[in-house]
């Protein structure tokens, strides 16, 4: 790891980090408030049978309980897009973007090994994701307080939920960094990572809404985000294994490929 690069990375990302964290905190605040205000009404509507039973749960989240509403916030496209600013946007541009702009050459002309560059960027993106998820959970906790439903919140399980979220988006960041370390241009790295994320999201949501497509869910990393189960104390620790495995595979791949790559002159 390189401290000068770490400081530079955090300095250049700090405004983005503040804005994303603020937006996530607001988003996290909104859902418990909505649950507190309309949860009972929503439950009655769904129990009346107007909507199919499957529609009562979207990706493992709902609006009939505090844990369900926080889980809904986690799996909602708003959170995914906001966290992907770092998990996909930063991770894919961290190496391929610098390479495309030509600044990677200036960086690698210093006495910094490519592995150190990768490790520093990986640590940075992990930190950004960790802060972003923490901001969402902080907003959720404040929202639960504002809605007067704090007694329904298992505060002691929030660190596990935070870890689960960090592992999920960390796995996408590991894929993004591996793609970034493998190419000379940003577009392929971004395209591949985004495609994986979108397809996995589609698999998970489709599987949660359509029983015949349930078999697709284990193929999606989103399936291993067990927000509601963690808050309810029913999640299995083994759910973290696939997420951790993807992170390890991405890191190992990048640490092998990046130092061995030829970096020809930018065209």
């Amino acid at each position: 790891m390189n401290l000068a690069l770490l400081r530079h990375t955090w300095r250049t990302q700090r405004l983005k980090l503040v804005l994303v964290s603020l937006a996530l905190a607001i988003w996290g605040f909104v859902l418990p408030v909505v649950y507190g205000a309309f949860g009972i009404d929503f439950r009655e509507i769904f129990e009346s049978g107007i909507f199919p039973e499957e529609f009562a749960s979207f990706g493992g989240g709902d609006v009939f309980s505090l844990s369900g509403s926080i889980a809904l916030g986690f799996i909602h496209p708003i959170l995914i897009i906001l966290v992907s600013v770092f998990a996909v946007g930063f991770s894919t541009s961290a190496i391929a973007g610098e390479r495309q702009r030509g600044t990677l050459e200036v960086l690698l002309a210093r006495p910094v090994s490519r592995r150190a560059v990768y490790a520093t960027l990986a640590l940075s993106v992990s930190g950004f994701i960790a802060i972003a998820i923490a901001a969402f959970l902080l907003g959720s906790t404040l929202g639960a307080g504002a809605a007067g439903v704090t007694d329904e919140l298992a505060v002691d399980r929030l660190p596990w939920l935070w870890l689960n979220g960090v592992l999920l988006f960390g796995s996408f960041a590991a894929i993004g960094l591996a793609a970034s370390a493998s190419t000379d241009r940003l577009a392929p790295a971004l395209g591949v990572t985004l495609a994986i994320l979108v397809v996995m999201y589609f698999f998970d949501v489709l599987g949660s809404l359509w029983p015949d497509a349930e078999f697709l869910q284990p193929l999606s990393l989103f399936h291993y985000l067990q927000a509601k189960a963690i808050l309810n104390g029913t999640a299995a620790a083994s759910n973290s294994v696939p997420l951790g495995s993807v992170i390890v595979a991405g890191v190992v791949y990048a640490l092998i490929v990046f130092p061995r790559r030829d970096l020809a002159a930018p065209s």
Partner: protein
Amino acid sequence: MMSAITTVGLTKHYGHRRPPIHPPFLEPSPLVRALEDLSIDVRPGEIFGFLGPNGAGKSTMIRLLLGFLHPTAGSASVLDLDVVRQSVEIRRRVGYLPGGIALYDSLTGERLLDYLVALTGRPPVRRDELCDRLELSQRTLRRLVRDYSRGMRQKIGIVQALQHDPELAILDEPTEGLDPLMQRAFYTILDDLRADGRTIFFSSHVLSEVERVCDRVAIIRQGRLVALEEIGRLLARRKRNVEMRLSGPAPRFDGVAGVSGVETTDGLLTCHLEGDVGPFLAAIAGAAITDLTIEPAHLEEAFLEFYEDAEADVENGLPAA
């Protein structure tokens, strides 16, 4: 230190590979021989010019020295350190100015220099002096890089390469975008670095500046070394153009060493002169000459001449150098 840079049979080929998983119809990309069996030796304390047209392999050579590329064959060492195994240590002791340098546009000039020197891990002992000589004021350094002109970017590039007083500076087209006054200031910086015992590896298209600042020059073509000589010796071998206006009979040059291509038209004699001028001067002694011009040899002509010769050799299947 034995030498600043040594390459032995350094070779770099690109392409000719298919991805590990590929459809059967996918042909391997064509093999590009970017550098072929290059052996040079740059002495400590000299300014070494590295010449060649676009695509000759200059950038490939520099990138191999800095560990950006891995050699296909051969070996290279910089400051007696192996370019493959000790690349990080090499970069600690080397300053590098890439051709057409890209900078972090969102930083100010000062912050950029601070960042890059922090990555190097050595104090910027030459920064103030360099900024002063390249007329980069504090006010300029406090502006964002994105607002800089091309010339100012190049000045920042020069400062970042030299601010930590590296033992070896590798400079790729260093005067690109500099006005003539700044070019002159840059040449004096190079002279001072040489006087301080620093080594400069200088890649350029601008032959007049190579002639002005370099001690020795290597010329490459299609990845192969076609010449490696001291500038003075290269120029001495170069044919000079002679023009003389006559008011009487033309002097005879039959058998005069170094004189060729003699033509006389309407009292104007032109010829080429190569090597020692003594026999030529002896031959024209006593001739009725009203005007005489001997154009000095320039590296540009020597370079082009060399290239034409080498091209003919390569086409005839002869060794290029």
